[in-house]
């Protein structure tokens, strides 16, 4: 094992080579915000919240997919990054229909938490109010597209952990939407094993268990962690 030493926000860190900046920061006790990263599945670098500044590079680099290098000097909380993060969160709120007051995930939502973390007391961009729908054709779960932020965690857990690949992305730009099966109602997708991993993975209230009402949604992320690490840790029961 080879070790890389680097500096994050002035703190010296030594990590295994091949580690991402995001993981290295975590080891150093530094939280870099992210919405699309999920431990145990591949990283896509899509949400851009984990961008960091690296001395000597004029580009902002996503911490989730950038590997550490010897001697890196990383800043994760510069005023520029903070401002960009806030704008990113504002863009997310303005592009969907995020009504915390009536959301199952109210109080247990990573998007809501992110708004608090970046200090968003309002969005400076006009709300788009897109016309999106809701699919509750699945007997246990539902998806409210109004609350989707296209982090694609559901797609990745379904594909990489469950192996079912029920979820995918259709359309592009502002019209982009998560689809189930071949753009069928979720309930009609035979590949779905109803395992619920997508429900656990969803950062917002977009994918939910039916029957839960406002602010009732509780997630147990350790379920996912268990599924990811059980084999190597030889934890056969939970």
């Amino acid at each position: 094992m080879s070790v890389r030493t680097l500096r994050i926000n002035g703190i010296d860190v030594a990590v295994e080579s091949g580690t991402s900046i995001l993981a290295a920061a975590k080891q150093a006790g530094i939280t870099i915000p992210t919405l699309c990263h999920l431990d145990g599945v591949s990283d896509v670098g899509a949400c851009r919240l984990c961008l960091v500044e690296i001395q000597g590079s004029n580009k902002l680099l996503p911490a989730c997919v950038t590997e550490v290098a010897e001697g890196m000097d990383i800043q994760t909380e510069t005023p520029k990054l903070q401002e960009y993060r806030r704008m990113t969160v504002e863009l997310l709120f303005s592009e969907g229909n995020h009504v915390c007051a009536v959301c199952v995930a109210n109080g247990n939502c990573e998007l809501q938490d992110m708004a608090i973390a970046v200090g968003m007391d309002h969005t400076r961009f006009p709300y788009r109010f897109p016309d999106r729908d809701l699919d509750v054709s699945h007997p246990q779960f539902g998806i409210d597209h109004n609350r989707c932020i296209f982090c694609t965690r559901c797609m990745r857990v379904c594909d990489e952990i469950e192996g079912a690949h029920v979820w995918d992305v259709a359309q592009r730009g502002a019209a982009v939407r998560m689809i189930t099966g071949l753009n069928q109602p979720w309930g009609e997708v035979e590949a779905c094993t109803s395992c619920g991993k997508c429900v656990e993975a969803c950062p917002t209230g977009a994918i939910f268990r039916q029957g839960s009402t406002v602010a009732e949604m509780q997630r147990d992320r350790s379920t996912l962690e268990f599924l990811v690490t059980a084999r190597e840790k030889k934890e056969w029961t939970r």
Partner: protein
Amino acid sequence: MDLAELLAIRQKERDRQKSTRIHCCTAAGCLSSGSAAVKAQLEAAVDAEGLGASTEVCSVGCMRFCGRGPLVEVVSREGDREPILYEQVTTADAASIVKALKGGEATAPLGDRNHPFFARQFPIVLENSGKIDPERIEEYIAVGGYQQLYRVLYEYDPAEVVDEITRSGLRGRGGGGYPTGLKWATVAKMPAGQKYVICNADEGDPGAFMDRSVLESDPHRVLEGMAIAGYAIGANHGFIYVRAEYPLAIRHLQKAIQQAKRYSLLGSQIFGSPFDFKIDIRVGAGAFVCGEETALIASVEGRRGNPRPRPPYPAESGLWGCPTLINNVETLANIPAIIREGAEWYAKIGTEKSKGTKVFALTGKVRNTGLIEVPMGTTLRQIVEEMGGGVATAGGVKAVQTGGPSGGCIPASALDTSVDYESLTQLGSIMGSGGMIVMDNETNMVDVARFYMEFCRGESCGKCIPCRAGTVQLYQMLTKILNREASEGDLERLEALCYMVRDTSLCGLGMTAPNPVLSTLRYFRQEYEELLQPATGKR
């Protein structure tokens, strides 16, 4: 196939060609103004005049002066007579052109090969364009085609080819301007194994048609360039990723690949050497983002055309995880000429840092529109005013847009800038793939910026937030300004969001999407400010 056979084909074709050739452009530009019917009339007239023994009518590729199409040129094989160019030829003119061969006047307007539009050009990539029938491999072979592939296979080792390209100073013509030799060397140095060459023909900038013309007019040139690249980097398989909106280019490519395979110029053991190289076409479904290399690779693999973060770069991990060389059409089309004439010859053309020539699609309000190939370092003024003839409206040229949705608007005051990668970047625009749109004083620059933002908004893949949602908001803000509903605060927000989208987007599409706004703000800020309203209410 060996060299003797290639030379025999060459000779046979030269003997076959009749002493008088009437070249009729049937590339997409002239085709759309009716050149197919003109060609049919020309053929009928040749028969009617009984000139069949000495005269043939040939479909050729782009003759470049697209704004004056359909173009027809009468050339003599021996070169004993000056070629005669006819412009805006109608079916009614066709017979007179043929009759003029026997003496008399043709009714079609005469073109002028000494016109600055042509005279300032330096065709390398377009050297065969408008002179050979792109659907006949024999015509390409007759002008020396595939000989450079032979030479490379027998006279160079792969490293020498890479070295030749490196010394030529060629840089990526897709817009990035990355040194081609360096790119080749990177892929060549990856451990031996499966490697790929991809030709990026997903040209999508509004107003750009350089790559389409090259593929329509001289497809074998691109195939030969790809094969040479394949040999240099150790790849045995190439893909051409071409957009479905280019049906003629696709047809010509398909035909060219079939013909090259039939002559064993593609396939196994080319020219009897151990080098195998095959080429497949992948037709893109029309997503602009698929011109971005990682999205293109995903699309070739049959996945959704989404970009992914780099590194790893395709040179290291590209198609199906294998080292992959991606070059643009024009870059590859330069290769046979560089091998033929040598790196030193090529490096003498152009400027110190930007070598060779660049093909531009000159469009917009300019008088002379069409395809031009000029040495790097030609000034914008020479292109726009001399070659393009300026604009017809009072007040003259206002700005020149280069680089499409990723580029910017260069104001008339900077027309004396030399066209090279660095100078254009300094002006806040980019070389881009070669779209050049001239705007006159009647053009509203805020509207121009909005047009490009609308384009990017529609073409964003939607993967990353700044590009997906940011372009929507930028478009809205520009609309608000144009509707005279915006105030100073909106302009500040517009600018701030531009920087945010530029700095945080995942791929080149998002990173460069704000460029048309930023460059118009830089040079035409006043036009934005004139549309602003005083803020309502107190604060």
